[in-house]
């Protein structure tokens, strides 16, 4: 399986994977130059659903841009909205009530679990196991129902406002979330016994698609991809934004660098997110969720501001260049999948095509976020 392959560049053919292919989970195309079953070279072609979110930002006010953020990564939209409101609040020096910040952290972590559950189901399905998807979506459904109750939407949330939230959470949400934590802990145990320790899964993933620390540094990989390669980097802890310093949680790191390590990072992250949610509910302070003085127009002082948050797939960054107007002069979205996918071209060389698709699944791609 892992013997070095001597590739024969003069006997190759080109294989098009995508733009419509079940394994790419979106409109992504990979032009693979194949030597038999082995990949000689690959070129990823993206941009099929590019919508120019950055130009849209220049044409609307800061508040009008809020809904755009959840259209980037529709699976962990909450984290992207969080990054944007934090960026604007930091630049405009808007104070956020503590309760609002706690609720933000709770909902972001719930969204992270639901995002990882989609990845888990889809990834295992890529590898040929269909039933875990049904279980994962069942669990995810609980989160979507809870979040729908407070935010009003199931995927494309627009729940955060500058200085606070759209509305406060209610008792139903709190009791429902506590029940969910219990349920999810049981489910994670089941996933571990049924899927993680499954010999077929291990054989499919171990030593497949190794990513070195050097590769991560050159491509700027972050999130579970970097943490699966032994890089202890999580923006939630390294930059300690929002109320994350108040929580006691671990950052799972695996040193193997293979697909199985990335799989394990995400599985353990779900447990850690549960811990954060539980602590958040315990510590949840009373008080308002919006500032006393209503914020009408948001204008940032001229300057250049950068904010990063840990989204479901890695470090999501926002750069706002302001000229003092009510809409940004320039807004740049740094999406984690973009950098994580970029290293695929180099890392998949010499791999069997079946392994490469497993490797691609372990990168956890969300195409609209990559194309923006």
């Amino acid at each position, binding site marked *: 399986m892992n013997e070095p392959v001597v590739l024969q560049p003069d006997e190759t053919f080109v294989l098009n994977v995508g733009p419509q292919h079940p394994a790419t989970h979106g409109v992504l195309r990979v032009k693979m130059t194949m030597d038999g079953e082995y990949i000689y070279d690959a070129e990823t072609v993206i941009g099929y659903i590019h919508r120019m979110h950055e130009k849209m930002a220049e044409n609307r006010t800061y508040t009008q841009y809020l809904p755009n953020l959840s259209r980037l990564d529709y699976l962990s939209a909450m984290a992207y909205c969080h990054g944007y409101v934090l960026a604007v609040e930091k630049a405009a020096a808007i104070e956020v009530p503590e309760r609002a910040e706690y609720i933000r952290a709770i909902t972001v972590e719930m969204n992270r679990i639901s995002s990882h559950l989609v990845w888990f189901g889809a990834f295992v399905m890529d590898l040929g196991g269909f039933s875990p998807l049904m279980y994962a979506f069942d669990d995810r459904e609980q989160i979507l129902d809870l979040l729908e109750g407070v935010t009003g939407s199931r995927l494309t949330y627009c729940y955060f406002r500058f200085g606070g939230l759209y509305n406060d959470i209610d008792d139903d949400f709190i009791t429902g979330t506590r029940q969910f934590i219990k349920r999810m802990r049981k489910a994670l145990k089941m996933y571990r016994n049924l899927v993680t320790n499954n010999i077929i899964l291990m054989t499919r993933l171990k030593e497949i698609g190794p990513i070195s620390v050097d590769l991560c540094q*050159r491509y700027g990989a972050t999130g579970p991809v970097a943490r699966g390669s032994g890089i202890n980097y999580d923006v939630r802890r390294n930059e300690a934004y929002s109320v994350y310093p108040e929580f006691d949680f671990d950052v799972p790191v695996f040193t193997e660098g293979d697909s199985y390590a990335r799989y394990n990072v995400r599985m353990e992250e779900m447990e850690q997110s549960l811990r954060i949610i539980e602590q958040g509910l315990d510590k949840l302070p009373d008080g308002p969720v919006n500032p006393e003085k209503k914020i009408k127009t948001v204008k940032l002082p001229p300057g*250049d501001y*950068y904010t*990063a948050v840990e989204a479901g797939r890695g470090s999501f*960054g926002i*750069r706002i*260049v302001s000229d003092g107007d009510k809409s940004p002069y320039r807004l740049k979205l*740094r999406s984690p999948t973009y950098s994580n996918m*970029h290293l695929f071209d180099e890392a998949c060389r010499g791999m069997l095509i079946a392994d490469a698709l497993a490797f691609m699944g372990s990168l956890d791609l969300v195409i609209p976020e990559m194309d923006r």
Partner: protein
Amino acid sequence: MIIETVKQQLQGLFPASPEAAPAVGGVDTQEGQKVEKGGKETPRVDGIIERNYAERGYHLDIQLAPDQLLAAVGILFDCGFFIETITGVDWIKDQQIEAVYDFSRYDFDLCRVVIRTRTPRSQPVLPTITGTYTGANWHERETHDFFGIVFQGHPHLIPLLLPEDADFHPLLKDFKA
């Protein structure tokens, strides 16, 4: 502290000349505040400014000439920085395009570095940094898509996010759809 190390090494790129003297190692928050109140961010002299992280989100703000870019990026690579992103800003009033390079670190020695360099708007040309950071490839292609900056030496400078026959640059301020 890595900030001091990086600052010291980068300082070597800016030989102290009488006129450039104030810019080199420009005083940290005072400079930042002056910028804030004056309401004028640009243009500024090449040099290193230490920014207030809590306010700006990065520690070192370096503006340099295009021919110093590779040396500066090389220093950051050797210090263990990873590439966060590359982007551009169109300063149409100055008739210049600014390329902005973001770098950060994986370890706990938190230090975010921003490198800026400006190129004339009529003929925007910059050297590529793909030789050092392979991952700059897509970022530079994207910046070429949006701003039309030509990255000299780039291995594959074709449209990435825009259609393959795109001959427009949508993030330029005078772009009309």
